[in-house]
């Protein structure tokens, strides 16, 4: 029952990522957490594709990876921008907008 194992692994990675996103104080850390979440997806897709024996999963994975990169780029850009304006990358300090 290999599939189960992969799925479980993916689930664990996803949860770790989510945990990171929710707990990291540093914005970069949060970005990394998101990366983890997305990569868990890749594990899923590849596993599914492998076991159902068609390539769509792999194709999907390729797309995911590309898009992840794009997101990372945008995210880092925003972080840098923010650091310029506010001189901080600590998520907790970013609460001017609230209520």
């Amino acid at each position, binding site marked *: 029952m290999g599939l189960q194992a992969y799925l479980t692994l993916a689930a664990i990675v996803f949860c770790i990522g989510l945990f990171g996103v*929710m707990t990291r104080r540093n914005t970069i850390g*949060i970005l990394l957490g998101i990366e983890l979440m997305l990569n868990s997806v890749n594990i899923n897709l590849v596993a599914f594709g492998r076991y159902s024996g068609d390539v769509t999963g792999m194709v999907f994975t390729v797309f995911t990876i590309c898009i992840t990169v794009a997101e990372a780029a945008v995210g880092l850009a925003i972080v840098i921008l923010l650091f310029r304006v506010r001189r901080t990358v600590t998520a*907790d300090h970013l609460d001017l907008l609230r209520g």
Partner: protein
Amino acid sequence: MAGDGTLALAALLLHAVAFLVLAVAAPLRRLGRPAGYVSILCAAGSLAAAVLSWRAHAGEAISRLVWTWLPTEGQTLATVGVLADADSTLMLTLVALVALLVQVYSLGYLSDESAPALGRYYAYQSLFAFSMMGLVLAPNFVQLFICWELVGLCSYLLIGFWYQRPAAARAALKAFWITKAGDVGFLIGIVLLWRHTGTFDLAEMRVLAGNGAIPLAGLAVITFCIYLGAVGKSAQFPLHIWLPDAMEGPTPVSALIHAATMVTAGVYLLHRTDWLFALTPDVLAIVVWIGAFTALLSAVLACVQTDIKRVLAYSTVSQLSYMMAAIGAGFSAAGFFHLLTHGIFKALLFLGAGAVIHAAHSNDLTDMGRLARRMPQTAIVFTVGALSLAGLPLFAGFLSKEEILGAVRAGGFTAPFAMLILVAFLTAFYMFRVVFLAFFAEPVALHAGAPVAAGVGAHASHVADAGHHASHAAAGVAAHEPHEPPASMLLPLWVLALLSVAIGVYFTFVHPEPEFTSPAWLMPVAVGSAVAGILLAWATYQRRAIDAASLAAAFGPIYRSALARFWIDDVFERAYLLAILGFSRVIGWIDRYLVDGVLNMLSAWTVTAADDLRTMQSGRAQDYVYGIAVGLLVLLLWVQFG
């Protein structure tokens, strides 16, 4: 043509015309005296018409004019019109007469009112005369009730004529509310009766009653309700308390409304519908007992008043109760007869009292004395009135009062009969107490400690009419002497005096055979008690052979409680303050703080909840992710177990 009631209608409408003219033509009204002339003119015409129609309807002639007033379901629900017969036209004449005389009298009495006020006064007077006549001629209960309320309104307006004076304003409200309380019963009675008999019309109803078509079940309740209306209007216990306070109004008003006409409306009502009440004897019994009791109560109260008008007021109450007793005993004719004679001589007494007040600038007996020298004519006519009220032969009250006594006895009400005899004695006593104190005795002010001085001393109304007559005193007539009133006031006095003598003489010799037989001893007893009363008064207040103080002391408790008016007024005061106002406060509080408060509570809660809820929007990106995570978790759990 005279027989068809148009004359009665004319008598009625003339006053309406006067009222409308005065009400609409404001400039005329503001002129004052001319307004008075207008309404007097109409009153005179109305009197003529009334007399004619009375002559026309003497005997059995009955004429009826009605017009549809309220349609429902395509048919007529209620009508208005006139029902002219012997009784109604006779009453009509009395009203017309007294109204005319009073209006003339007022010209002199209110001579120093401001012009607009005088105009207002005459407008009210005309309205009253109109409504009273409408009441008298009413062919059905609806019109009866309408006019019934209207006269109540006029009484309210006229009592409060000097509304700038707190006492007057309060008295007006008191009168309106107390009578209105009675009218609630009356109205209910009418509604019930309508369902019971299917009509408002007196004539139709009488026919039904005649051939026993009115179911007796529940009729007693209805008649009692109607009687309640009479209780209010004709000042029967316990609703009699408004009448004495009503003396805050100008004296002519008291003469017209609170002596001769309006207050007798209740009696008239019962007389008009005696065939209905005859079906419910137990209600009639109540009428007798209450009548007798009220008569006695108010007679006692009259003895301790020092305000001349209040004495008369209480005496009015007690005389009205006389009539009620007679009607209750089943002989309403006797009551009606007394109503007429009483109307004449009580008006006379009030107008006389007015003249006295006019002269002495005070209502208080203690300010009077030996006025006979200064104003002999007034003294004479007043005494005539007093004698009539006492019921001595040759005077108006004589036969009517005796008939009532006979009637009550014939009705088999022994105890009430005894009470009424006692009342006859008391009546003579308090009336002549007034006569002696005011006209013949030395001013009692010299005799310190006389009980009269210890009357309801502190009562606000003591300055009643003096209030506005003070203008005289202020006008530098400091060394001012009481004097005869002007002709405009004397004339009505004499007319009424002569009338009461004429009636008295006529009926002393011409006995109409009553529907009942009264024993031979009745007349002597009645007259004797009256004479005894007069003698006692004479001995006490003229000769001062008997010390009034000790006399009062002899009746200690009664005397003291009489001074407190047996606390009846206080009870009503409390009821008004606590029961009505207090309860209203409670309801008002409930409305504001519970009914509305709950609503406000809800909205306030919503706003607060909103405030708390938005704190969820902490501003930290990670909390937002928490939000997503939680939502996700819930969804997953639902998928798993839902």
